[in-house]
């Protein structure tokens, strides 16, 4: 005889520890099973796209910091890259190398936050402390070169704000060696843990067709076997010069997304070390006009952020500020698929799935 059950709707968040910022979900459950999830977003909506219409192109750079605040370097690059594409600017190779170093450092720092908070969601407290200890070293390095811990505004249209000193590069290089060992430590601490594995394996499974329909990117796509990564698939900057791999898995579950991000950190370390070894001499600022007035037209420029395919769409009317400025946030697209992934799973699994999407609400809400 079937047990009589009743559906219950409750609000998860907006200030729940497992929601990474102010995300709220109206969750309908039947016992332990999730029947329906309706994400409620917008708590961090600051109207960046509207603000951008009133700012000159260089003035927009600090606003990009504040969208996905865990990957401000990459946001900076996405915006200046779009403007540089509009202007047809040539960037000195030295500057481009420094950009790659700071972007990959930022990617590692972002993945570390994800790693710590994801495990926090699953109930493991101590990994968070390890992750933030290592992340702090990277943030100190980035602070030294840019002047800020999180909101770097380090990129300039045409180059970067300041040159990297030899001393700084040496310390980055040293820390990368240390970081390889630390990641091994993370694996010893967490990855092999059976309890952890049973929490994430075969949880939140979807296939490649699903990922494509929902326009997923980043680890959320590569866990299904597709190796789409903008750095390799539609190369920008000087990434074709670097030797690195795109980690993929085929199981499509939370475990796959976890392993991919761990391996991505190792690949980023490879890129940083190559960049430091091969760093050419040259200016850190290219030949950029002081008064930036791109020609009329529209342009879309996209890069691989820690969370996936991030893009900047600019409609220029020939003036010094964009007529329309639109941001493609990968976590926005990835989060949109969250209700479809979670249908019918347990509540605890829902938290694991949400954590594995790796959302940053500043980027989702913009």
């Amino acid at each position, binding site marked *: 005889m079937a047990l009589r059950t009743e559906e219950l709707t409750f609000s998860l968040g907006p200030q729940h520890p497992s929601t990474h910022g102010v995300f709220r979900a109206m969750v309908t459950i039947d016992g332990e099973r999730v029947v329906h999830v309706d994400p409620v977003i917008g708590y961090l909506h600051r109207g960046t796209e509207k603000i951008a219409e009133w700012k000159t192109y260089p003035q927009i750079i600090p606003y990009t910091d504040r969208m996905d605040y865990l990957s401000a370097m990459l946001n900076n690059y996405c915006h200046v890259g779009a403007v540089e594409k509009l202007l047809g600017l040539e960037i000195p190779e030295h500057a481009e190398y420094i950009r790659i170093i700071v972007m990959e450092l930022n990617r590692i720092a972002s993945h570390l936050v994800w790693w710590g908070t994801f495990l926090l969601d699953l109930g493991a407290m101590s990994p968070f402390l390890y992750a933030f200890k290592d992340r702090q070293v990277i943030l100190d390095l980035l602070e030294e070169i840019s002047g800020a811990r999180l909101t770097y505004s380090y990129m300039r249209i045409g180059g970067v704000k300041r040159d990297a000193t030899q001393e700084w590069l040496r310390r980055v290089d040293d820390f990368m060696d240390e970081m390889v060992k630390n990641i091994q430590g993370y694996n010893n601490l967490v990855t092999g843990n059976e309890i952890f594995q049973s929490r994430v394996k075969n949880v939140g499974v979807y296939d490649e067709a699903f990922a494509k329909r929902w326009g997923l990117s980043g680890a959320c796509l590569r866990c299904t076997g597709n190796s789409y990564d903008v750095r390799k698939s539609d190369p920008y900057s000087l990434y074709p010069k670097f030797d690195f791999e795109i980690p993929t898995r085929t199981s499509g579950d939370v475990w796959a997304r976890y392993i991919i991000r761990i391996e991505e950190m190792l690949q980023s370390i490879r890129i940083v070390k190559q960049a430091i070894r091969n760093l050419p001499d040259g200016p850190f600022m290219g030949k950029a006009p002081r008064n930036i007035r791109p020609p009329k037209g529209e342009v879309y420029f996209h890069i691989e952020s820690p969370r996936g395919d991030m893009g900047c769409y600019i409609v220029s009317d020939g003036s010094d500020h964009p007529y329309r400025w*639109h941001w493609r946030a990968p976590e926005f697209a990835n989060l949109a698929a969250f209700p479809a992934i979670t249908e019918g799973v347990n509540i605890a699994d829902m938290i694991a799935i949400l954590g594995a999407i790796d959302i940053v609400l500043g980027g989702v809400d913009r």
Partner: protein
Amino acid sequence: MDDEQHTNEHDESSDTKREEKPSERPPAGEAVGDAQAPAGAPHPESAPTPEAAREASQQRSGRLPESSTSPTTPTSPPAKEGEKQPAAAGSARPAGGARPAPRGAAAPQVPTWIDLEELKRLLGEGVEAVENQWGTPVVTVQADQLLRIAEKLRDDERFRFDFLTTMTAVDWRSYLETVYLLQSYEYPTHHLTLKVSHLDSDNPRVPSVTGIWEAAGWPEREAYDLMGIYFEGHPDLRRLLLPEDWEGHPLRKAYDYID
């Protein structure tokens, strides 16, 4: 301030460098503008060596010498009103006049993966305009043909645009426009921008493409929320970012946001 001074320094140094060896082709690592780039268009796509890869990526970024801007098709003017001329006209002209505008600016490359005329022919009726924007074909279609063309772009072997990266809208004051930025997981270097233009500002209605790309769900809700466009057939058209009781649509140019 200080970065602007740095800019000056390096501009000057690269200027002198340019004067010293005007005819030499710069080595790949040199920090010079593309003024010295070879006259012929760099070979597209294939990138076996790092240098070639860099050239290819530059080409994708729209950094081509001016000589390669020979008009290809009558349907690919560089700009809507035909005003956008290479470098000298539209691009940055510094206040002092000392620094020349970057060469190659506003010299939109031609899409490498398809000819615009052919694209127009393949998409059939309902195509209002096909133009080239920095190497990306921009296709404007009639609203009633949007779904047919979108489905063709997704399924046709020639296109395979199965990745709707994002969807947004632009307010051109007298009318609205929806913009669909398409990519392909299969051919990641192919980009295409699909548009439905001249929507009535008072009652903008356009068919929802959620049936073709599920990824359109949230971006269409966002465009409804911030631009006030009604997507017919959208399964769940509610405000997304703003509270439900918000009045008006802030991304409209006429939106009065100062109370």
